């Protein structure tokens, strides 16, 4: 049944995949994200991160202190817009 429950809609990650990943030793949120791919699609985890974190705890994994490391940009941005960024000599 758990192979029919979708956890991450962008990347089609099921509850079953989370269960298998935890059983394979991916017991923290960063490792679980990488092994299953949840949160790496179009919405970048905005819809699934909290749900997957809850399931990780239910499965006996390490309770996450924070969501996984957010990856900019917050929203998808076209390359053509980014190419018009002006060079700021002070920027890091």
């Amino acid at each position, binding site marked *: 049944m758990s192979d029919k429950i979708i956890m991450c809609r962008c990347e089609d990650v099921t509850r079953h995949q989370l269960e298998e990943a935890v059983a*394979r030793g*991916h*017991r923290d949120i960063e490792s679980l994200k990488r092994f299953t791919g949840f949160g790496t699609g179009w919405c970048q985890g905005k819809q699934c991160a909290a749900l997957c974190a809850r399931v990780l705890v239910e499965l006996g994994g390490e309770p996450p202190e924070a969501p996984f490391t957010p990856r900019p*940009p917050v929203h998808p941005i076209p*390359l053509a817009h980014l*190419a018009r960024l002006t060079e700021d000599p002070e920027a890091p």
Partner: protein
Amino acid sequence: MSEREATEGEGPLLDNARPPANVHDALVAHTARPQDLPARADCVVVGGGIMGLATAFHLAELGVKDVVVVEKSYLCSGASGRNGGGVRAQWSSETNIRLMRESQDLCADFATRMRINVWYRKGGYLFLARSPERAAQLEASVQLQRANGLRTELVDAVRVKRIAPEVETTGLEVASYGPDDAVVFPWPFVWGYAKACAERGVGVFTHTPVTGFETDGRRIRAVVTEAGAIATDQVVLATGAWSPELAAMLGLSLPNRPHRHEICSTESLKPFLRPLVADLATGLYCSQSMRGELVGGVSNERVPEGLDQRSSLRFLGLYSRELLRTIPRAGGLRVLRQWGGCYDLTPDGNPIVGRTDELEGLVLLCGFMGHGFMMAPVMGKRVAEHLVRGAHRELFERWSLTRYRTGKLLEETMILG
């Protein structure tokens, strides 16, 4: 054994890597539980990236009994999980060309042998030269590559358009095309080696930082971690950009320095770009992954000092400008995510691998200039063979730390980024 003998010969590699019967069907945990950390080991590999895991795997294959890997964070947390996944044999030194030819074969076979999908795609590598100086450099490299059996070719603008129609050829002097170069998804290589380690009784302990070492004169006695000490007299330091920190715990000063490198990934498109496209002058590289995303990066000298894995808005500007100069039609593609990782740079652009004069039982395996991922399959094998059988002595003497004292420095011109 000389390096020439060692790298010759075709045929299947990873010969012994087939998992024991039925084991691949069982659900094997990739990582061990902290409470199972052993009190002693024949060899401790510090660093659970692809370099350390590949070495541990081959040590187990060669019959070393108690091998342990300690990793301070999660699997894929360092450069092994942050690189662009390029696997090319187009290099400018004979050593790197030959080693990478073998590594490519190991990568091509990896999915079958390890039973894990690595999204291997042999789309070739296309290096663009847009100045006479770069053209001359590429021409020299191609000559050497062909002399070493690669199918690399120098191609003109017309051919470039045939290989990658979306690439802008205005201002192009010449390009080099290596049809056997490939791109993979890096993460399953890490998991595949971790799984193969677990299947052979090698404990892979994540979230287990090393806090120090116990030594007795020139001998190593133990590796001390947050989870306890492991008595051992053999240590392989495979900690990439963190190597100077770890070596300092042993009183050893390394000339390596970390350098942040950033990458980004776009939304997915249907396949349109076969080769990885790169320009050594700007450090731009870009490939289309099996998921359809454009993944790439660009040189950026002005980054924070030290170990820093953050990403910057400035990078997106630099990368987008260079990418759109090369593939103008990509302008409408949206960037989904960006991240950073650390190159492990050495003063002469070549790795630091081998034993040291200062400590017995220590093997350094670092300084891979941002290209350690693609080198790891062959290096893991070579280092294990060196430790167990004393093989490849000539290579590891040439790549040893000692060269910075004796002045026998090396050269490599095809470093990207």
